[in-house]
């Protein structure tokens, strides 16, 4: 059976070149970067080269100028950013502003902080997933210690007006963190132009290996490490560095930076054609997220009258891999908080599918995908009480 992955948001394979760059660091250059002897040298250099590459991807030209702290994941970077700044306790106040559509690695720690007495303000988004700069401005007060709003949403793809949002916070000297996990490598990012104080990204979203994330930290921002111990990563993240993964992240960042435009256009072209085909052949589809301001690889649709997990399972049987709701929470029960936040009605939110294109997505597969999707939708609709209700109502309306 032909297998077609449309779930590259959950995981990307490691690029051949990336793996090649990593391999020597498992066996040959296996030293500890902290070692004072020759075995530490290559790993240490490789670490700094990777840091420079990751920096370059987010617009840092001079490696020494700003800090990139390597972590093991985007989740860890997000936790380091928020808990790090809160527990460093430099700023007085207890209000933290975020958006309603952040990843759980933002929202769940904020829920914990809320229990500890912090005031968490979740800005609503409009029906396309956009945060309103005006609402951010209103939400800021002199107790505000941090704003954390993502660059773009993994699930519905919507890209925020980050520069504008940052400017509002910066005017009041409030630090701004942004989760760029879904965006890095797919849209141009420049931390200096954006003005963000912290930015999260990860390698496994851009054909790098799992196990390497990064937090950009602007000069002057003080954090308390989440993992305390040795003085690795400028004292902000203890533990022997995962050299092969970081090297892979660096190489993946280099490739992403070099080919950014080509890659973006390629996945966007596939995505657009897939969307056109699906909407043409399958009735009752709904697009989720912003029609234009969206990540190039992201297509999110709701298949009316049917439920997402059942769709996912049926498509899986056909060798087509998608996710329903956020890929990281597909084991959870409820419909995604993101779709709730954009006001998607529950029956549509339940039937949402994230179709995430990748570099190996082929336009010639679109007719096949469309056919299978159409079959599966029909099959599940045929057993859906909502669909039969709709048909009945349609008939009644026709009879009137």
């Amino acid at each position: 059976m032909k297998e077609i992955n449309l779930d590259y948001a959950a995981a990307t394979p490691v690029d051949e070149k990336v793996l090649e760059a990593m391999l020597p660091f498992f066996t040959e250059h296996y030293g500890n970067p902290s070692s004072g002897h020759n075995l530490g040298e290559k790993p240490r250099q490789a670490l700094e080269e990777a840091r420079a590459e990751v920096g370059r991807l987010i617009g840092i030209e001079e490696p020494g100028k700003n800090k990139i702290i390597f972590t093991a994941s985007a989740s860890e970077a997000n936790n380091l950013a928020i808990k790090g700044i809160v527990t460093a306790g430099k700023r007085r106040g207890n209000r933290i502003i975020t958006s309603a559509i952040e990843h759980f690695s933002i929202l769940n720690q904020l829920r914990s902080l809320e229990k500890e007495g912090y005031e968490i303000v979740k800005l609503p988004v409009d029906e396309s997933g956009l945060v309103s700069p005006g609402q951010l401005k209103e939400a800021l007060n002199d107790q505000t210690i941090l704003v954390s709003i993502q660059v773009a949403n993994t699930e519905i793809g919507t890209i925020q007006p980050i520069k504008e949002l940052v400017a509002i916070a910066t005017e009041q000297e409030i630090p701004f963190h942004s989760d760029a996990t879904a965006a890095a490598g797919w849209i141009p990012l420049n931390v200096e132009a954006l003005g963000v104080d912290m930015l999260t990204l990860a390698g496994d979203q851009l054909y790098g290996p799992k196990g390497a994330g990064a937090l950009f930290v602007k000069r002057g921002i003080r954090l308390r490490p989440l993992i305390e111990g040795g003085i690795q990563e400028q004292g902000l993240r203890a533990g022997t560095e995962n050299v092969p993964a970081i090297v892979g992240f660096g190489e993946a960042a280099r490739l992403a930076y070099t080919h950014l435009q080509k890659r973006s256009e390629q996945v966007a072209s596939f995505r657009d054609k897939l969307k056109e085909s699906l909407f043409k052949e399958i009735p009752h589809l709904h697009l989720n997220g912003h029609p234009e301001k969206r990540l190039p690889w992201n297509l999110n649709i709701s298949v009316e009258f049917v439920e997402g997990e059942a769709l996912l399972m049926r498509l899986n049987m056909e060798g087509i891999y998608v996710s329903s709701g956020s890929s990281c929470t597909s084991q959870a029960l409820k419909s995604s908080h993101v779709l709730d936040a954009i006001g998607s009605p529950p029956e549509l939110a339940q039937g949402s599918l994230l179709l995430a294109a990748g570099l190996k997505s082929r336009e010639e597969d679109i007719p096949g995908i469309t056919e299978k999707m159409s079959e599966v939708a029909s099959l599940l609709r045929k057993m859906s009480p909502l669909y039969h209700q709709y048909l009945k109502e349609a008939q009644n309306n026709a009879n009137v």
Partner: protein
Amino acid sequence: MPMYSEKVMDHFTNPRNIGEVDDADGVGEVGNPVCGDMMKFTIKVKDNRIEDIKYFTFGCGAAIAVSSMVSEMARGKTLEEALKITNKQVAEELGGLPGNKMHCSNLGADALHKAIHDYMEKQGAKK
């Protein structure tokens, strides 16, 4: 789906008895899309036995498998027997359900019982 048993996968892949019986003697509808799952059972009763049973289901893989299994378990049973079918039995017959899917078996049993009660009420009304 490795968290689903083979039985669940079988019933999900080939759900039995989909549809609506003609001139249903009893209708049982539970859930709504807001809670995530929705099932509608229709039954034909003859001589106090469930002669035919069909359903429509909006829901996850487990919900579909549960509906299918319930329809098979109930068919041919007397109403009293069918009323004794519990969510636990349904889950067991399916070779178990993941913890976060147990509510689906509740829905299945509930919808069946509702259809039977609907039938009984209608019978009562007729008398």
